[in-house]
């Protein structure tokens, strides 16, 4: 829509997609979608990476646990091997000596085990449990070795480990909290019969200490079990040594059957979930588990993930903020656009033709709406870049065009009527409004021209005026006709009167039967007819008269009338008071008629036998003169106040004979002058006839 670039002049157009107001709305939706997608992708990425890291952490933990398990197993194995070695030797020696001289064997044994600091006690018994030698010095006591012997019989002659014995020394349970792990070998003689049992008690604490050292990581746990799941030694505290073997516990339930070593994650007896590596030794029935607490692993993992997620979140936040700002701007824009869309739709929809011109470029047309084309026949393409004066064709000297030019020069809005010409040359009347459009600095940049085709209206108006003129002419004609007709009607009536009277004079008397009556009726009827026609003639003469208005001195007029009827006045001894009367602008003849009639009536309708008192005067009422004729006669009944001025009522009824058409004629005259006439009852009897002559141009209060 930029038309400000130097050379090219482009038309104003309102693109379809913006016109419906949905363009920016769609942009907003896309923008929102885009940002949401980015954020979601970011989240997913962070999530995936985090999961990956966790996976890696777990694997690292497993590897670590496995390594530890290996190390522990080696260590345990060495220890056990050491002990087992010594025990084997002892067992062989005992077997060789036939169980004879245990002391010597023991001395050897001690030699062998000189460097076994974990060894707490060595006990040698005979198969039924009698202690032959006890390093802890309780010879002669008994030790229950039946289990060992039994097992030897079923499983074979190998090192037997456990169960854990609570107490410092075998054979003497005490509850100091110290425990020993017995390792037993049953010595067999020839034929496989047991001859002695050698038990070495290993300080459980020895294992525990080394386990503790290994399980340096918080939550880590190293444990040593027998194959059947009974616990021998473990790092950490809180173990219940009296518990039986837990074959339901991992790895004892399934895993050991499948593999000798492996890893698993599970809750362990102390309730902590751990990544655990286990290892089994075949040589001895031992299982070592090394567990690393998942919480610790996860904590480490989360720290790592956070260090990665934090910057990602920062980026995400920035993106979100920017997106929000952008969306807000776009939403505002969408709102504006919607308003603009409505405005542009309005321009396209209205029935008035609208053009927009550029003020600085000779008012070239840059926009024309569809209605303009409908009215003028010119499309935007036809008029684009041209001045609107093309609409006037050759008709440049129209009177209103000068006004238009002036207003445009003066940057003033103007409304006027012009003759315009359609593209096909047809002329039409246009009501045109031209309005300047200002920019932010108050400079006029464009003009908007709005036009309506008022040809029909003008034609209708002209037609209406024509009809009204015709009507007025017809009415006037009718009234003139009535006037003339009434005069014409008079002629035969006059003849009838004349000849009737003549008959009365020339006919020989006495007349035949109803002759006199007939004559009388004839004369009477003729007289009445004459009166009626005379009255009508006078009435229609009012409208037929075209005498101009002049300044009429009512005082003079009334006094003249009184002089003319002085005989009548004297005859009824009337007292007539004439007050100050104004000069008014009126048809003198007609006004005289009114005064004459009112005065005549005032005298005529007096109380019989009484001298009438008549007052004639005037007063100013809001710029018009109100004249009155007041009498103290017989008055007019209230219900007749309207009737007596009504022409039709007067023609029809005869209840006020002698009144004739005088009052309707007075009303015709007064109304012709733009005034009103009416009668009111006078307090004290009689009537007050009042009439107004407006527009006299005299200020109230002036005489």
């Amino acid at each position, binding site marked *: 829509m930029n038309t400000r670039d130097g050379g090219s002049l482009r038309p104003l157009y309102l693109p379809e997609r913006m016109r419906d107001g949905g363009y920016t709305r769609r942009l907003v939706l896309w923008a929102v979608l885009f940002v949401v997608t980015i954020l979601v992708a970011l989240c997913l990425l962070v999530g995936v990476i985090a999961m990956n890291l966790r996976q890696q952490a777990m694997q690292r933990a497993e590897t670590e646990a496995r390594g530890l398990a290996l190390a522990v197993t080696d260590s345990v194995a060495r220890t056990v091997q050491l002990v087992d070695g010594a025990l084997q030797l002892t067992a062989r020696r005992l077997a060789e000596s036939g169980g004879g001289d245990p002391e010597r064997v023991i001395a050897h044994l001690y030699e062998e085990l000189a460097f076994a600091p974990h060894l707490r006690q060595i006990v040698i018994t005979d198969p039924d449990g009698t202690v032959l030698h006890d390093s802890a010095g309780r010879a002669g006591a008994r030790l229950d070795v039946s289990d060992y012997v039994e097992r030897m019989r079923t499983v074979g002659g190998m090192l037997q480990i456990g169960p854990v014995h609570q107490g410092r020394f075998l054979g003497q349970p005490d509850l100091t909290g110290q425990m020993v792990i017995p390792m037993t070998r049953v010595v067999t003689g020839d034929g496989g019969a047991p001859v002695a049992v050698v038990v070495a008690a290993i300080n459980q604490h020895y294992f525990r200490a080394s386990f503790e050292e290994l399980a340096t990581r918080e939550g880590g746990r190293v444990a040593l079990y027998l194959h059947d799941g009974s616990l021998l030694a473990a790092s950490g505290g809180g173990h219940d040594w009296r518990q039986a073997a837990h074959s339901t516990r991992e790895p004892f339930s399934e895993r050991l059957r499948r593999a000798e070593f492996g890893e698993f994650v599970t809750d362990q007896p102390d309730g902590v979930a751990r990544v655990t590596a286990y290892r089994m030794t075949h040589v001895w029935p031992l299982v070592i588990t090394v567990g690393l607490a998942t919480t610790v692993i996860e904590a480490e993992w989360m720290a790592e993930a956070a260090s990665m997620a934090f910057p990602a979140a920062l980026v995400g936040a920035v993106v979100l903020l920017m997106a929000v700002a952008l969306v807000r701007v776009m939403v505002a824009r969408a709102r504006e656009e919607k308003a603009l869309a409505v405005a542009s739709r309005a321009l396209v929809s209205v029935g008035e033709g609208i053009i927009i011109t550029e003020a600085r470029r000779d008012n070239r047309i840059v926009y024309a709406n569809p209605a303009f084309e409908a009215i003028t026949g010119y499309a935007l393409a036809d008029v684009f870049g041209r001045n609107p004066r093309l609409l006037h064709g050759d008709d440049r000297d129209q009177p209103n065009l000068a006004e238009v030019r002036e207003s445009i020069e003066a940057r003033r809005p103007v409304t006027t009527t012009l003759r315009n010409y359609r593209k096909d040359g047809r002329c039409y009347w246009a009501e045109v409004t031209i309005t300047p459009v200002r920019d932010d600095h108050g400079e006029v940049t464009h003009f908007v021209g709005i036009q309506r085709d008022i040809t029909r209206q003008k034609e209708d108006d002209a037609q209406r005026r024509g009809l009204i003129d015709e009507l007025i002419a017809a009415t006037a004609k009718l009234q003139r006709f009535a006037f003339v007709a009434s005069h014409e009607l008079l*002629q035969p009536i006059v003849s009838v009167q*004349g*000849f009737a009277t003549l008959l009365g004079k020339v006919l020989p008397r006495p007349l035949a039967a109803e002759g006199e009556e007939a004559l009388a009726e004839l004369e009477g009827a003729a007289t009445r007819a004459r009166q009626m026609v005379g009255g009508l003639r006078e009435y229609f003469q009012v409208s037929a008269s075209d005498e101009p208005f002049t300044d009429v001195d009512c005082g003079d007029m009334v006094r003249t009338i009184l002089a*003319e009827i002085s005989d009548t006045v004297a005859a009824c001894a009337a007292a007539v008071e004439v007050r100050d009367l104004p000069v008014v602008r009126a048809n003198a003849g007609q006004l005289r008629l009114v005064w004459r009639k009112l005065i005549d009536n005032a005298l005529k309708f007096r109380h019989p036998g009484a001298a009438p008192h008549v007052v004639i005067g005037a007063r100013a009422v809001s710029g018009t003169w109100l004249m009155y004729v007041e009498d103290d006669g017989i008055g007019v009944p209230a219900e007749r106040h309207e009737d007596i001025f009504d022409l039709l009522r007067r023609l029809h009824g005869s209840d006020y004979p002698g009144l004739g058409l005088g009052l309707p004629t007075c009303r015709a005259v007064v109304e012709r002058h733009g005034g009103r006439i009416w009668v009111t009852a006078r307090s004290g009897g009689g009537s007050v006839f009042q009439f107004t002559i407006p527009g006299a141009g005299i200020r109230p209060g002036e005489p």
Partner: protein
Amino acid sequence: MTTKLREEVSILIVEDDPGHARLLEIAIRRLGLDNPLVKIARGDEAMRYLGLQGHAPAAAAEPPLVLLDLNLPGKSGFEVLRALRAEEAHRHPVIVMTSSDDVEDRRRCHEIGCDDYLIKPPDEDELVASLSRLGLIATKGPDR
């Protein structure tokens, strides 16, 4: 019976309605006046007859009594009256006989200068009084 009008005086009735003209004629005759009587129905004809407005006058040396209706074809009664009074040479006695009792008409006629203004149909007594006032006849004896 009334005395006749002076013999030389002719009577001119200017009236377009034949019935009215006849009534007037009868009334005059019934008064006993047998002066020559001319009836003219048009205003312009009347003016020609009277020698008004450049026309050569008709025969009579003595100006006739003019009984003038107001509503005439050609020229109206007012115009005839005005023309009559404009030419001072012709001092005709004019009695306006009209069906109109319009006070305006009466006033105008008197303004222009009629000698009397009577309302049709002609009343014999009024006619006598008027002629008498004009000095054209003298009443003698009682009326019928």
